[in-house]
């Protein structure tokens, strides 16, 4: 639990610490990186008055992990340091004043709804791969979360790949059309505590969003800025429709990837006569040529992709039966899956000056 609170990237020393607040039979742990706050409440027996102090997050996480399983942990505030002990072990950790700890002032939520943990986990799994690792377009560092027509929709994109999935909601309180961008970092953390049972309470306000899972609360500033209009870039009609088996296709992509150019990892797919021919070439290394069968009987078409992005995209689906819809060799390619009609992925091709290895 404490490890979830651990936050990095701090300039303020106190931010490497967790705030521990003990009062009224509850110990509350708070961690923050100023953009988001995580609060965990656990029942605690209190002796003496309420206590408020801060402790180094990483050390607390580590030492708690090393305590005997199931043991009760006793924390004693001794002014300037805290004694943490189980039956046979005792730590004394230096504390920093709790008064320096940044206070979070919550916004009013305009929209509140509940979604099952399983659903939210699926959404995060389906879209998070499409987030950029780093992008100067800050708004892309988060996933777009929207409620519309009693659905919860999540979208992530880095411009090269896009994933969007929605699930239906039972009830939405307040504004039915909420929209915000939540950092990928927070969603990754949140994903770790989502299980198969139970639900998540979601609150969306103008500047903040919150996810409440049992005794854990994530509250975050939303990422401001205009999220790109993704509907505008997803093609609606496709002259080339391919149906493929993911596992076979992935294996072929991986084979071709062995000799792809390091720079853009490009492999070339040629669809014709119910088959897909994979070719790739890396200067100074060699070439690859392979074939897998697919369902396709249209005109031959040749498209180049980054094979790693192709594999990540295929993996984001919960089922191996995939439709690959191609508009042209230089248009966004759309991937869908019958078993998951509410999930759509887009993958941008690689533009090559000459598609054929060898350049003849």
């Amino acid at each position, binding site marked *: 639990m404490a490890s979830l609170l651990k936050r990095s990237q701090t300039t303020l020393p106190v931010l490497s610490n967790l705030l521990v607040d003990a009062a009224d039979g509850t110990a509350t742990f708070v961690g923050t990186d100023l953009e988001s706050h995580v609060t965990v409440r656990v029942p605690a027996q209190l002796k003496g008055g309420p206590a408020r102090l801060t402790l180094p997050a990483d050390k607390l996480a580590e030492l708690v992990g090393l305590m005997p399983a199931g043991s009760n942990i006793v924390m004693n505030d001794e002014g300037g340091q805290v004694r943490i002990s189980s039956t046979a072990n005792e730590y004394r950790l230096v504390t920093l004043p709790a008064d320096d700890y940044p206070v979070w002032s919550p916004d009013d939520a305009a929209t509140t709804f509940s979604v099952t943990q399983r659903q939210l986990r699926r959404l995060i799994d389906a879209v998070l791969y499409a987030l950029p690792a780093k992008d*100067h*377009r800050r708004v*892309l560092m988060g996933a777009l979360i929207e409620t519309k027509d009693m659905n919860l929709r999540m979208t992530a*994109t880095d*411009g*090269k790949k*896009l994933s969007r999935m929605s699930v239906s909601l039972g009830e939405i309180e307040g504004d039915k059309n909420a929209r915000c961008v939540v950092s990928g970092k927070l969603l990754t953390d949140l994903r770790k505590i989502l299980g198969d049972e139970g639900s998540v309470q979601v609150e969306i306000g103008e500047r903040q969003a919150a996810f409440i899972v049992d005794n854990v609360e994530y509250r975050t500033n939303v990422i401001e800025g205009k999220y*790109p*209009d993704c509907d*505008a*870039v997803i093609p609606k009609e496709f002259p080339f429709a391919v149906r493929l088996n993911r596992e076979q296709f992935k294996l072929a992509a991986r084979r071709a990837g062995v000799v792809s150019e390091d*720079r*853009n990892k490009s492999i070339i797919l040629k669809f014709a006569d119910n088959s897909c021919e994979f070719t790739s070439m890396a200067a100074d290394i060699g070439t690859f040529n392979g074939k897998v069968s697919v369902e396709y009987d249209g005109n031959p078409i040749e498209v180049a992709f*980054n094979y790693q992005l192709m594999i990540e995209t295929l993996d984001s689906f919960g089922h191996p039966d995939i439709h690959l819809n191609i508009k042209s060799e*230089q248009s*966004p390619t759309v991937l869908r899956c019958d078993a998951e009609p509410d999930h759509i992925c*887009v993958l*941008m*091709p*690689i*533009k*090559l*000056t000459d598609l054929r290895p060898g350049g003849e």
Partner: protein
Amino acid sequence: MHRQRLVFHVDMDSFYVSVERLLNPDLVGKPVVVGGPPNSRGVVASASYEARAFGVRSAMPCSQAYRLCPQLVFVGSGFGVYSEYSRRIGDVLRTFTPLVQMASQDEAYLDMSGTERLWGDPEASARSIKTRLREDTGLPCTVGASSSRTVSKIASAHAKPDGLLWVRPGGERGFLAPLDAGRLPGIGAKTQTRLRELGIRTLGDIQRVGRVECRRLFGDHGASLWDRASGIDDNAVEPDTGPPKQVSHETTFAEDISDSGELSRRIAALSDKVASRLRAQDLTAFTVGIKFRYADFETHGASRTLENPTNDPSVLRDEARGLLAEKRDPRRPLRLIGVAASGLVGGGEGQMDMLSAERDERRERLWKAVDALRGKYGEDAVERGG
């Protein structure tokens, strides 16, 4: 049948100064440097042989050159003039062989293999090149000729100024042996120090150490060191076709700068110029690099390769700023900073971005306007505000 390779290294003699003398014959016979003025913070780009006699060298701060030689004449016509002469030199050289690689504005490698029937033996053809360059551009040069780039480059340096040296096949080792080890192109300060520590002074000393031992001492680099010190160098002359390898801009400050906000602004301005040149040639760059020089002339470089090639100034700027923040000691003021784009590919190539279309359209209009203004009024006509 194995054909004997013949490589020329054509090196213009104090090129910038020679160009200045063409434009102003009064400078002939005087100690002249291109760079300056003497109280400025720039460095000497080129020094006449008269100036070199006073110890003035290229890349020396102008103030130091002035101290060494107070009667020194500082000139500078701007790089447009030099580029024009450089282009004309290339044109002349390409009439001798299509395989011409301009190594910089004032030096070129020529693959002259198999041209004997056309131009005579190496000495005769080198003489023809010198004469033609003198007639067509008015500029003097020195030609080194041998079976490899390395030996020809050392030969031209050896024969300067206005010289010609042909190292005959088989004579490479003997020619190199008595020369100082530092004459070998590409030997860094570190290697030189290490060589001195080992008592290795000449290229002949390196030859005697042997290839195996050189590799043990210096790694893979050692093997190539021995090869080149022995006159073995298979590197081909790569004619200048296709896009340039790098586009860069740098600036020496009027006063040293330590304020990171000011440095960020300078980087933004340099990034704009680099991006502008990339766009002019329809290129994008995979790699962004910076160069910075502390007040004491200690110089550093760093680079980062991007996932997607770019010619967007804001991407170049952000990467360059990030690199500087990472590598620079903020307590030490800088005198120079540069931004470079390399790993260049055609603008149309590479991973496509579905989101770039809309913003590109907006930006492209802006950049087109900026480029047009710069084309008309010069590179400094449009600067980034704030």
